[in-house]
């Protein structure tokens, strides 16, 4: 089945919640409303003829200009060898998309990663905690407006440029050496230059 046909079926089932298929020059996708995404996924998985049982990818893209975070679902079917790409747009300030973990277990860890790196909450997820970053990390790094903190548990995240540091250490070393071995007194003014005195 082509992606158009799958899209038709999905639109037939869910009506308004499913947007149109985007233009095919890039990979086509269709936007689904956040509150119906679980129904859409269940429909896509369970319907004979569709059976999109492989949740290939579940990730997010941050669009600060449009003020949305898109959660992207790449779905595929091994049996029928067709797939579709769904997107859910959610507000950047407090993003929240119902979890599809009940439809595919693969979504479990992938949603945790989206929560970890983008801050999208997934109500209905059984165990939503950070997966890649430490549990007490602040911020969500893959957002476009992420600012790094001052360091983590006392480990700074900036350091001096190594070349500058080496030069500074070199100068300290030279200064210490100079103090330890005072330079020899400057030689007496040289004797009259070898101006030939034999000018007489």
């Amino acid at each position, binding site marked *: 089945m082509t992606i158009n046909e799958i899209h038709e079926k999905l639109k037939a089932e869910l009506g308004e919640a499913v947007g149109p298929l985007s233009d095919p020059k890039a990979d086509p996708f269709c936007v689904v409303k956040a509150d119906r995404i679980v129904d859409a996924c269940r429909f896509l998985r369970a319907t004979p003829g569709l059976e999109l049982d492989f949740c290939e990818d579940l990730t997010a893209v941050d669009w600060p200009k449009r003020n949305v975070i898109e959660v992207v679902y790449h779905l595929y079917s091994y049996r029928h060898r067709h797939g579709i790409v769904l997107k859910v747009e959610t507000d950047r300030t407090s993003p929240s998309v119902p979890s599809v973990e009940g439809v595919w277990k*693969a979504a479990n860890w992938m949603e945790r990663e989206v929560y970890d790196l983008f801050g999208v909450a997934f109500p209905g997820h059984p165990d939503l905690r950070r*997966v890649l970053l430490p549990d007490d990390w602040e911020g969500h790094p893959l957002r476009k407006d992420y600012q790094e903190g001052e360091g983590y548990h006392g480990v700074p995240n900036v350091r001096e440029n190594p070349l500058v540091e080496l030069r500074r250490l070199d100068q300290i070393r030279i200064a210490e050496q100079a103090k330890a071995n005072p330079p020899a007194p400057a030689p007496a003014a040289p004797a009259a230059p070898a101006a030939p005195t034999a000018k007489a």
Partner: protein
Amino acid sequence: MEKLILRRVDRRNEEMILNFGPQHPSTHGVINFIVETDGEVLRKAIPDVGYLHRSIEKIGEMVGYPGFMPYTDRVDYLAAMFANEGYAIAVERLLKLQVPKRAQYLRAIACELNRIASHLVSIGSMAMDIGAVTPFPYALREREYINDLIEALCGARLTYNYLRIGGVAYDLPQGWRDRCLTFLDHFDSLLQEWDRLISFNEIYERRLGGVAVISREQAIDYGLVGPNLRASGVDWDLRRDAPYGAYADFKFDVPVGKGWAGVVGDCYDRYYVRVLEMFASAKIVRQALEKLPEGEIQVKVPKKPKPEAGETMGRVESARGELAYYVVSDGTDRAHRVRARTGSFLAMGIIEDISPGLMVADLVALIASLDVVAPEIDR
């Protein structure tokens, strides 16, 4: 912030909570497992990843399309050619480039050699985890030949940076083809030696057979890919079923788990599927070397490519399964989002649900059989 809440440990049954890792002597990398056990049988093994997180995806938004290629090596350093290729395919699709035939064949040759090398490390270290130390140096000995070949090809032994957007970086050096064919002739006899040494060893079969069975439905549901998926009985290989590059021109068989030592989908199947895949890859390299066409090795690409706004998914069948790059471009010369969806990340997800009831030694076998590498999980 949510924290990991562990169950109250049942002290009457002498249960304890331990950390397996993050340092442990196997090539799987820095991964930590929080294990609830009574010393023998696990109640649960919770993977705790992130020790190798290098924010590669964030870097992808900063360095521009050609500049990201060396970073893709580090997504999976044991099978770096595939990581390169996935990204290259995605960006080429965005830029609407047509890769020359010779470059596609060279990519296939390099990738299949890399698959053999990666599987050698995988099965060698799996045997070592089970206790038979000897097969590991044998596998590394064979891998040294491949390392030498690839070093002659692109100059590096581990993180190759061989592929470029639009083709490959270097052509075959003189005499490389004959060396490669010599190696392949030598390599074919390794299967017998390997099988005699370890694959059909009774102790090995007992340790792995019937352990941590992942059924077909579970494998698909949890999103396992690659040899893990095929070992559970799903006959799916991206090279054959959705061919990309030059793979449509090659004939090769795809081993699927048959339950050689017990149940379909157990650790032994995952191991033996990899063994058989290595030898199938050797056949592919032979065919590719025979049919190698002449031509360009790289299409001209602007220094700072600016693809149209859009997005695409570039998929390859890596040694660890389907490695997919989701690249979103917004019309500038820097990507808006680069995402690497790796097989090892989801293999971690299944460990928590498969582990109850396993013994501690079986957990080692399970992790080894899933062939996870930490850089793929953490990126």
